[in-house]
């Protein structure tokens, strides 16, 4: 039971001659709270795409709890407990909040094939959906079409869909992107409340969120890992500061630490 939750080895992705991901190694132990940061265009979202299976890698391997998942499809990876959220909301706009989460629950439980019986009769799933809505503070919006609720709350639905898929490893791609600052704590609190049985990789620009969330972190620049380890050590690295943060970024990191 000691093998890590997620191991990425020598992962490479090129678009023609342009290398977007270069020999990336990453290891997340179970229950990790790992942050992935890097300047724009560093290849963070590509890396999430590669790990989740949305993009095929050119070379390298990905292991989930000791099983090689490099060649299996995104849908199969979800079934194995590897779940991602999207940087830009990818929801079912005309369906209600409840239905968005129900869809994910019913796929995870394998009842989406059921042609007999009403949706309203699926009591165990409905209970599960309601628990997720409660956790994320979405109960009041349950009946509203997703397209009609505030963007920040749509981000919570995005997270809710991921949670409904019963993740063992959760890849959060900038969950707070586009969320008004007043609603950010809602999101962060929801992430904080997730159990230790879920291993989380967080991509985030906001250093205060990273500081609060991460126990370990990796910095990516131009497709390569330039530093990895405990946040304090990584942020103190000269290379990281020169490549990514600049002086102001480091100040924000320090102030975030003071607030935490």
């Amino acid at each position, binding site marked *: 039971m000691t093998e890590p939750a997620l191991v990425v080895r020598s992962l490479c992705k090129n678009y023609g001659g342009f290398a977007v991901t270069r020999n990336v190694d990453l290891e997340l132990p179970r229950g990790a709270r790992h942050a992935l940061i890097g300047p724009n265009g560093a290849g963070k979202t590509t890396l999430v795409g590669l790990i*989740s299976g*949305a993009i095929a890698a050119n070379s390298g391997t990905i292991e989930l709890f000791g099983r090689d998942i490099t060649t299996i499809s*995104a*849908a*199969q990876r*979800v*079934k194995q407990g590897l779940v*991602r959220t999207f940087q830009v909301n*990818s*929801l*079912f*706009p*005309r*369906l*209600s909040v*409840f*239905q968005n989460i*129900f*869809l*994910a629950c*019913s*796929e*995870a439980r394998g*009842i*989406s*094939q*059921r*042609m*007999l*019986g*009403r*949706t*309203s009769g*699926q009591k165990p*799933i*409905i209970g599960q959906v309601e628990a997720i809505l409660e956790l994320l503070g979405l109960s009041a919006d*349950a*009946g509203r079409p997703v397209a009609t609720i505030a963007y920040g709350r749509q981000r919570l639905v995005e997270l809710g*869909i991921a949670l409904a*898929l019963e993740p063992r490893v959760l890849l959060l791609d900038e969950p707070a992107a586009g969320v008004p600052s007043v609603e950010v704590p809602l999101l962060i609190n929801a992430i904080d409340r997730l159990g230790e049985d879920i291993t989380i990789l967080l991509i985030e620009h906001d250093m205060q969120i990273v500081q609060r969330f991460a126990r370990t972190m990796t910095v990516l620049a131009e497709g390569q890992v330039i530093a990895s380890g405990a946040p304090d050590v990584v942020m103190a690295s000269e290379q990281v500061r020169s490549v990514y943060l600049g002086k102001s970024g480091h100040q924000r990191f320090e102030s975030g630490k003071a607030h935490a």
Partner: protein
Amino acid sequence: MSVDRAFYNAAERNRFGLLEILFWLCPIAAFFLFPTSLSFATHVLIMALFAMSLGLILSFAGIVTLGHAAFFGLGAYVTALLSLAGYQEPITATFLGGAAAAVLALIIGPLLLRLTGLPLMMVTLALGAVMFEAANKLGWITGGENGLGDLRYQPVLGIFRWSIYGQTAYFYTLAWLFALFLLTRSLVASPFGLALQGIRENPLRMNLIGAPVTGHLVRVYTISAFIAGIAGALSAQATGFVGLDVLSVDLSINALVMLVLGGVGNIYGGLVGGALYIVLRNLASDWNPYHWMFVIGAFLVVVVLLGQNGVIGIVERLTSLISGKRKETSP
């Protein structure tokens, strides 16, 4: 307080509402009001059934196809050929017509349904045209341009004879229509029906929550083809004749027009639109045999401009307007 079931799935209804009961009383009323036009009325029911089958995949799964007549035509020819071969038990012959269409969908579905949007429309259009030409060339099976005539069937359930006035054909068709309507109604209300709506809204995301998107689509496509095949089989039985027009591209396109007219987004869209289209076309061609398309076209423009969702959309807006006013006047 009982929760509205539409909360769980927009396609779910709590029970048969007053409007629904009134709707289904219409075909029964038509039987008594127009006893001399029953063969025309049967045609109306068949087209409503065909449009409903297209509505199942278009409204709920977002599959836009221009080749749905392939299934209607296959069902019609299979049932006709069975009759000519001496197999004349009507219910199983109808069923086999639908089953043949379902088998065709099961074969071509996994290939077709990887496509979406315009490419899907073009490929289905081409397939429909190929089916039409194949039926035209294979005259020794299909009768070519002459079609297959003088089809005979045994009495329904061994009791009801097929009369020239068409009472049997009318109620036989209505029974199939209602049964398949109930099937469709419960299908779209199921978790599977909701999954289809998810695919319609965002197929990419459905795939990434682990849903077998193509598998779901093939399943509903096959069911829709089955219903279309039944509609074709019924037309062969009701008229005693099958001609090449059952495979025509016109028929596929007309079914789409019926849906737009009735309204997409509701299982009644195809039923209302199909019936309305056929009745309107008949009235218009009585009025002017050369320019009847003008009437249909004008009507379509008005409906699209007035309501986002066909005639059903207009009715829904009117009823909510009326009930809204009632609430205002009675505090």
